[in-house]
């Protein structure tokens, strides 16, 4: 049993009377790669900002490495890397100067790692930051977050501005980083295929709450689409546990459930006197069904 690096219990955030987060209770174990996915405005960025102590929670608790997020001590901050959704670079500096500033502030820095990544990602370091493209700025932000070799890396939509090649390189690097030193990654994204490539755990956010949290394999096994063809008229409400959508038409029905098991299948077949076809869903389909 390992202690969780990130723990939240009943986390809530209300801004000007609007509920942004509600009752978020999650844990992240060391060495896991967690993908956070949700629609725009689902509360992903707010959750990350509260975890990192940028913003106070309205209710509940949030702890990183066992410490309260809002009052993180310096030693803990040194173990965290963060790539914000909107970069926070100093426009009048060059990339090299920006990296040097970050290195000076952190104290601990791995120039070899940065040089290797810079070279692989082709980040121009001797041009003014304000002249860089969105993707180049993003890459620079990622370099800044990796230079001090953090144990926990939080990335808020890190690949949004990257081209497909850079995105693939970045994801490969993330896999290497996560595996190499048993680092923990928590990243939000809209690109579902990226999650399938590298995430062990998936958190699906909907309307400020965690709609589903667990291992990617479990998610794919337990969230399925059922096509039910009964020999009799189906009831108005199907006896399905964890149904997120269902459509009925006489003796035919289709439904998406989140807690599918073989035992449930046997029970349903007997109860409804029906043939049940079980279809696995891609992560993208699952995401869409959660938000349908």
């Amino acid at each position, binding site marked *: 049993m390992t202690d969780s690096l990130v723990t939240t219990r009943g986390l809530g955030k209300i801004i000007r009377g609007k509920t942004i987060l509600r009752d978020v209770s999650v844990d992240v174990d060391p060495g896991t790669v967690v993908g956070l996915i949700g629609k725009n405005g689902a509360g992903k960025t707010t959750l990350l900002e509260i975890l990192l102590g940028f913003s106070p929670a309205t209710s509940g608790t949030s702890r990183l490495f066992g410490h309260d997020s809002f*009052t993180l001590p310096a030693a803990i*901050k040194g173990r965290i890397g963060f790539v914000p959704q*909107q970069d926070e670079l100093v426009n*009048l*500096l060059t990339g090299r*100067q920006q990296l040097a500033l970050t290195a000076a*502030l952190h*104290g601990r820095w791995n120039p070899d790692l940065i040089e290797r990544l810079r070279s692989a990602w082709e980040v121009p370091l001797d041009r*003014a930051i304000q*002249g860089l493209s969105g993707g180049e700025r993003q890459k620079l932000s990622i370099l800044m977050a990796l230079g001090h070799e953090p144990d926990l890396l939080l990335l808020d939509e890190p690949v949004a501005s990257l081209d497909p090649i850079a995105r693939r390189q970045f994801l490969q690097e993330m896999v290497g980083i996560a595996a190499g030193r048993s680092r923990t990654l928590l990243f939000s994204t809209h690109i579902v295929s990226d999650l399938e490539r590298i995430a062990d755990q998936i958190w699906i956010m909907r309307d400020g709450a965690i709609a589903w949290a667990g291992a990617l394999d479990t998610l794919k096994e337990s969230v399925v689409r059922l096509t039910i063809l009964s020999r009799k008229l189906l009831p108005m409400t199907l006896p399905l546990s964890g149904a997120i959508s269902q459509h009925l038409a006489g003796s035919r029905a289709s439904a998406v459930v989140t807690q599918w098991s073989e035992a449930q299948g046997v029970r349903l077949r007997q109860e409804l006197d029906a043939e049940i076809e079980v279809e696995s869903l891609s992560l993208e389909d699952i995401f869409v069904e959660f938000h349908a």
Partner: protein
Amino acid sequence: MKGIAETMLRLLYVSRMQRWLTGFGLAVMLAALYVGRHPGAHGLVALAGTLGAMIVVIGPVVAGPLLFSAMTAPRTMALIPHGRLKLVLGAFGSQLVLAAFIAASLHAMNDAPTVTVFALAFGALTAFFLGFSLTIYYRLAWVWLPLLLLAPRMLPAYPHLGIRLTSPQGLVLVVAISALAWVGYGISLVKRRRIPLSSRSRAAIPRTPVTYTPRDAMRIMLNGDAKVRRGIILAVLFFGAVFFLLTLITAGAPRPGGNPALAFALTTCFMAALMPAVGSGMLARRGARRLWLTSGKGRAELFVAIESQCWRLLFFAVGAGLLMAVPLLAMSHHSVPAPIALVALAVLPLSCGSAAMYACLLYVRGNRFVDILIVAANTLLLLGVAFSAAVSSPAFPFLIGTQIILVPLLRQVAARRWNRIDWLFLRQPPAAARLT
């Protein structure tokens, strides 16, 4: 028409805070008008009324050109039929409304001649708006700023200029030149195929070393610029040169009433303090977010670090202002300035600068009524101190004393706000917004 009216409204009510300021300023004005009707009303009442009018107009005057530049810059604006033309007409209309408001309020409070004030206000607003708009895009365009100092300096020295300016022909000339300036600016804006990004996008890359001490790194992260001091020195030197030239031009000319040289020096020191205080305070609020994870400092420690950074800049700016103002003041008077003048020159900018700095630092919770009220009251007091100093009012010692007492209180409020600072509200705008 709708587009023009919408632009006017946007430029007059730049933000929600501006609505609050307008309400507050109008309330002060109306109260002053009501109290001022009673016989034997104190002179301060008229001053308060004028300050109320200033609070109403200061937001649109200062932020209007900034907003206008941001509105005209996007290339998509060129695709909207007559988009830029509507923007220019809206901006022109907003300045007419502001000039009319200034004329009406000064007439109501001081019986100032409406037409004269309207024409002069329109001329001054036009010069400020167009000058400021150009300054945002062209780095060298900021040389227009000293022109604002020309009139207050020249008119007392050469009264016949003022008489000519306020004559019917002079007023017609002012309005005609202003209108022509708008026409010229409008044509150049509409015809231009692409409006350049801010001049800062072509700023020289500082040749600073690529190793920093943590302290220097913090300073740069907070200010967003490695060479703030050089900028201040250049600005002070430039204004010093202008002051010197104006002193030469007006030397020996009659100076009816007051002491224009001292007022000028006070204004220079005041502005030298105010700009870095407000600027560093505002930059630090956002810059501090960058340091939360990297500097290893807690919220209270960050506040202290930022505060000391702002104070250093303030002392530096005031010092530079004094170094320039005192010798020129001495030259203007052909003698060393009186000790009381020197004290005023140092105390006024430090007091006003620190009050403005803490007001900026405490404004970290978004638009909250209490915070808006504190900032508005502080601005009112700040303007009161500056005006009473400029006209050598007997109220000056009382007002500056009040301000000095209030500075530690403002600091307390700011420190308390920082202990619960929520950086969700202070995130960087998206890159696209920054570019436009």
